[in-house]
């Protein structure tokens, strides 16, 4: 019996700020003020959500049935690197209707400002007004070819191509927002040219943050059809990978928490379309 195990260390060791600094900043803010820029954001839900983001960064929840998973993965990276930058940015955005994060200027559209705070039936995202704002603003700012025919936000667009992210857009977004070096193998249609996917991941997980672009429909089936389109649908952050008796156990972060599943080496190869390695 062979048993191998690799665990990701604490992510992004070069941090720009700490959780303590961010919480101190938040404590000094008037948390009852309403914003004319964001008519549907409730101040209490907004600031409670920011506090939760700091205390439990892994609780970021991109919402049920939305196309926000890539922004969720990005949030995970940002909260590890610069929590103070995140809360300052969110507070500026709330107060002034525009803000700068790592030299990226955000001036969201009126439609997005009106939509934040109104998303419903998305699970706990319904009452997380800061996360609603954050995901909508990111989707509004960063565009890739998947967004070509749907660039302007309309009601319900959080579930459509307006919010979708392709691999190149994700790499660009992570590079710009985190200011770190990003290396990706794979593409939106063709799987990465990697001889042994397990070894490739195993080698990188300790010294880098590894994000995967996967076809979630294979492991999370939604109908009983045997023929399925082989396209990637989901971004996750790989937290742990181990091999035991030819079965691979993946532990990854996506919707507000960690998921563990066992798959064969063949399925691992089948589901992965992109491996994104991010410098710590």
């Amino acid at each position, binding site marked *: 019996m062979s048993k191998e195990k690799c665990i990701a260390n604490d992510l992004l060791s070069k941090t720009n700020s700490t959780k303590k600094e961010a919480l101190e900043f938040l404590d000094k803010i008037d948390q009852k003020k309403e914003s004319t820029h964001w008519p549907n954001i*409730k101040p209490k839900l907004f600031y409670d959500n920011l506090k939760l983001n700091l205390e439990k960064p892994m609780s970021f929840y991109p919402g049920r049935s939305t196309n926000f998973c890539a922004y969720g993965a990005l949030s995970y990276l940002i909260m590890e690197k610069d929590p103070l930058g995140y809360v300052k940015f969110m507070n500026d955005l709330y107060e002034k209707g525009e803000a700068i994060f790592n030299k990226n200027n955000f001036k969201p559209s009126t439609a997005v400002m009106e939509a934040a705070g109104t998303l419903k039936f998305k699970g706990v995202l319904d009452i997380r007004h800061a996360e609603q704002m954050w995901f909508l603003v990111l989707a509004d700012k960063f565009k890739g070819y998947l967004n070509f025919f749907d660039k302007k936000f309309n009601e319900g667009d959080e579930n459509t191509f307006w919010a979708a992210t392709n691999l190149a857009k994700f790499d660009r977004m992570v590079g710009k927002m985190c200011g770190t070096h990003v290396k990706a193998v794979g593409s939106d249609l063709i799987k990465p040219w990697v001889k042994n996917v397990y070894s490739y991941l195993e080698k990188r997980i300790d010294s880098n943050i590894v994000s995967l672009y996967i076809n979630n429909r294979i492991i999370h089936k939604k109908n009983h059809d045997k023929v399925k389109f082989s396209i990637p649908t989901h971004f996750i952050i790989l937290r742990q990978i181990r091999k035991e008796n030819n079965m691979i156990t993946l532990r990854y972060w996506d919707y507000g*928490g960690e998921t*563990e*599943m066992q798959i064969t080496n063949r399925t691992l190869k089948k589901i992965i379309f992109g491996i994104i390695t991010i410098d710590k």
Partner: protein
Amino acid sequence: MIRHGLFIFLIIYFLLTASCSTKIISNNYYQEQKENLDNIERSYEKLNPINPFSLAFTDKEFRIISLEMISDTLTRIYEFNVSEKRLADTLLKYNYDTAGIYYLLRKMQQTKVTWINNFDYYVNDQPQQLIILSIKPVTIRYIFSPPKYIALAYFRTEQFFDEKGRLLDSRRTKQLRKIKGQVFYKITDRICYTITEKYR
């Protein structure tokens, strides 16, 4: 030659026009299976709060089960053949009510329930729960046509519907409450249904 071309054209036309017309044989699945479906919902409602989980049959024969065991920090997703001993071992290991879940699985197989899960949603910022069951009904399905499932939503409290029987967001609004992008229709004050191409 022209007749031959016309024949091929007609076949293609038939295939394309038939492609969006999967028909569910029964128009009244809930009433026919009411007792079994309500029983499944009640069993799940009793088991889930103790140790949260969801169940999905991922094959047409209702033999392969995808079990999601949900805790505050980790969701474990494992796939088993229902007859495998590994399933019972796993349930036991993570302190699930093994007998209760096996009973639920049997009932789901008998009633063709392909998925059961708990949903959280919010009304006036307060958490609410509902249970969703997806059923794989007998259908007439043409080539290229998508599959069809019946999804039942069991709310805990009375819901509000418009004159067409569509589920509304609240008493005071005409806004429809869509679950996973689907409009739901009234069966009782607390139970509604939709027809969908995905079981979850």
